């Protein structure tokens, strides 16, 4: 079923661009997502949807598979089964006909090689030599393409019924930003630089632009720095631009990570335990920030959280995972009342 789903949809990129504007409905929907590690199942057949402009929380005891699911959406892990669609475009799914991809790489060289062989047999050595050289060049070229995987190549794949999940960096450009459970800032870069890296996918100056300091580069740098500072201010790090991320206090590091994610202008923001290890004051601030991001910027948010107050405070819908399975879903009130949830948390606590 996943295969058809994957094939049915148009390619990740084009659809993402197409659907970019579309107003309502589900911004992200996961169908029957399963992930196995060796024998064990981290996520089992989870269906999951995020309405555009909402805040959805994903909760569950430790080891429930929340972060795995998260990483599948972010493109860090390929699911064993299932499909994830972002704005009506399949971005992540189990690879389809992955085996056919190498055939693509060697198709062109093979053709030239065959012609070369024919030429040799025909005894037109001059032509043959040229063709042999050509074959080598083509081979190297196509292998390079296979490594670099440029856009047009990715768009080409579906034509041959091949589906490969988008790479993390592509997913960012589609409009999904994320933070990490264990903060992963660029520790030795300043806050500003961190945010600028976040903007990377939205900047377009090329190597020559930078080398020759062309207008495009200069303007872009200027404007993006202004914007970066705005982001820092937005999350409450005004004037901390020049401090190395490693030297920021813990709470600020979390904020910086959010600023960095926001800088990539996401439509969907994945927050992995944003308030983990925060004191109540920081927590309330963070909760406020999250709400603000949704209301002011209209960014849809998927939240993984342990702190129930946060979850119940901000989220429109809550999904509960336990042992990789979805055991409950609905409004905070409904979920809070759900006996299965209570059991999962209080009764028979899991490692």
């Amino acid at each position, binding site marked *: 079923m996943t295969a058809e789903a994957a094939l049915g949809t148009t390619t990740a990129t084009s659809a993402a661009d197409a659907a970019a504007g579309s107003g309502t409905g589900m911004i992200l929907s996961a169908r029957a997502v399963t992930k196995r*590690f*060796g*024998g*064990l199942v*981290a996520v089992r057949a989870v269906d999951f949807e995020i309405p555009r402009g909402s805040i959805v929380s994903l909760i569950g005891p430790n*080891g429930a*598979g929340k*972060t*795995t699911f*998260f*990483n599948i959406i972010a493109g*860090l*892990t390929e699911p064993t089964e299932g499909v994830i669609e972002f704005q009506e475009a399949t971005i992540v799914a189990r690879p389809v006909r992955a085996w056919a991809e190498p055939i693509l790489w060697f198709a062109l060289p093979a053709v030239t090689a065959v012609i070369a062989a024919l030429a040799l047999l025909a005894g037109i050595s001059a032509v043959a030599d040229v063709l042999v050289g050509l074959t080598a060049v083509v081979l190297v070229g196509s292998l390079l393409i296979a490594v670099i995987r440029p856009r047009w190549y990715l768009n080409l794949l579906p034509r041959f019924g091949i589906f490969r999940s988008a790479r993390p960096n592509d997913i960012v450009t589609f409009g999904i930003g994320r933070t990490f*459970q264990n903060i992963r800032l660029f520790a030795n870069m300043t806050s500003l630089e961190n945010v600028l890296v976040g903007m990377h996918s939205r900047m377009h100056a090329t190597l020559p632009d930078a080398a020759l300091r062309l207008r495009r580069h200069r303007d872009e740098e200027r404007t993006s720095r202004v914007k970066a500072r705005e982001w820092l201010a937005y999350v409450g790090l005004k004037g901390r631009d020049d401090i190395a991320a490693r030297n920021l206090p813990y709470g600020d590091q979390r904020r910086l990570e959010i600023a960095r994610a926001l800088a990539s202008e996401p439509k969907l923001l994945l927050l992995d335990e944003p308030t983990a290890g925060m004191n109540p004051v920081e927590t309330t601030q963070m909760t406020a920030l999250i709400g603000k991001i949704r209301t002011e910027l209209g960014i849809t948010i998927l939240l993984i959280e342990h702190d129930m107050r946060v979850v119940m405070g901000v989220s429109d819908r809550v999904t509960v995972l336990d042992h990789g399975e979805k055991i409950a879903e609905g409004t905070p009130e409904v979920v809070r009342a759900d006996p299965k949830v209570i059991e999962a948390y209080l009764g028979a606590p899991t490692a």
Partner: protein
Amino acid sequence: MTAEATALSGPRFPVARLRGPLILLLVILASYAVIAFGAGEQAPAQFINAVTIGALYALIALGYTMVYGIIELINFAHGEIFMCGSFVSWSVITTMGITGAITDIPRLVIVLVVVFLISMLVMGVVGVIIERFAYRRLRNAPRLAPLITAIGVSFILQNIISVGISNSVVTIPQLIPNTKLDFGVFSISVINVFVIALALALMVALHLFITQTRLGTAMRSTAMDREAAQLMGVNINTTIAITFFIGSALAGAAGVVQGLYIGVTVFNIGFNYGLKAFTAAVLGGIGNTTGAVLGGFVIGFLEVISQVYGYANWSEAVVFGALVAVLIFRPTGILGQQLADRA
């Protein structure tokens, strides 16, 4: 995520335990076929040559892989330790006034034991000293700093030997008589048997040490997570020192073996052997002892094969080409995944 992943991806290891020997067997069979195809009736002889030199590489590679496993340092000085080992054996043998092969078996055994013990001991100590003074202080420094000191140390060792002993080729008396055991189909000379047997014995001993003893466990835990090990009461410095001792002792043994097998040594022999051995370690999956052995044999075979097919001058290119090829498809080496029993 990482936490869950590692927790979940546990039960691969029993399989992995078997994987090493299986692949090794496959490699041996395959390369025997290739050699047989190329060398005709010389095949058995060539095969033995390959295994012998492979065993030598494996011995050196073990040191590389252990040191890397525990402090993630490419110990470029390791090749020179090997070289020094061969010189120590030379000086021991000549001091004993031995000039040629010893036919009287018991005497031979005694001499061999003495030579090996002394060389392994001396080189082990040297290795520990190097670690103490050249690497320990840099344990938390940027990763390249110890790499540079390692190369610096190797320069120092080379220069000491070249100026102190000889700046040219030195002949080492080959203690083991050059007699051949004939098995009808093929004949194998005693020295090859000795080298292979000794190498295998040392490898098995090392494996048992790592897996069965407390020290071995300490080494493995340190390799996996130094801080955690420390918290569990493992004395990191001692453990690392011991690792260096064992690794260098093995290199010393390899040095002696080289002397017995080849019969000459020279102060700059270390770089080439070191390079091949390190390649072996990486090929097999650096940090993985089984992998080092596997890699050693693979390289031995590759060299002999390229020689058999008349491309001796390309052997280096072949070896590194193979390395690149393997790493492209298995970025962590043939047995790389098995991080659990790094030592």
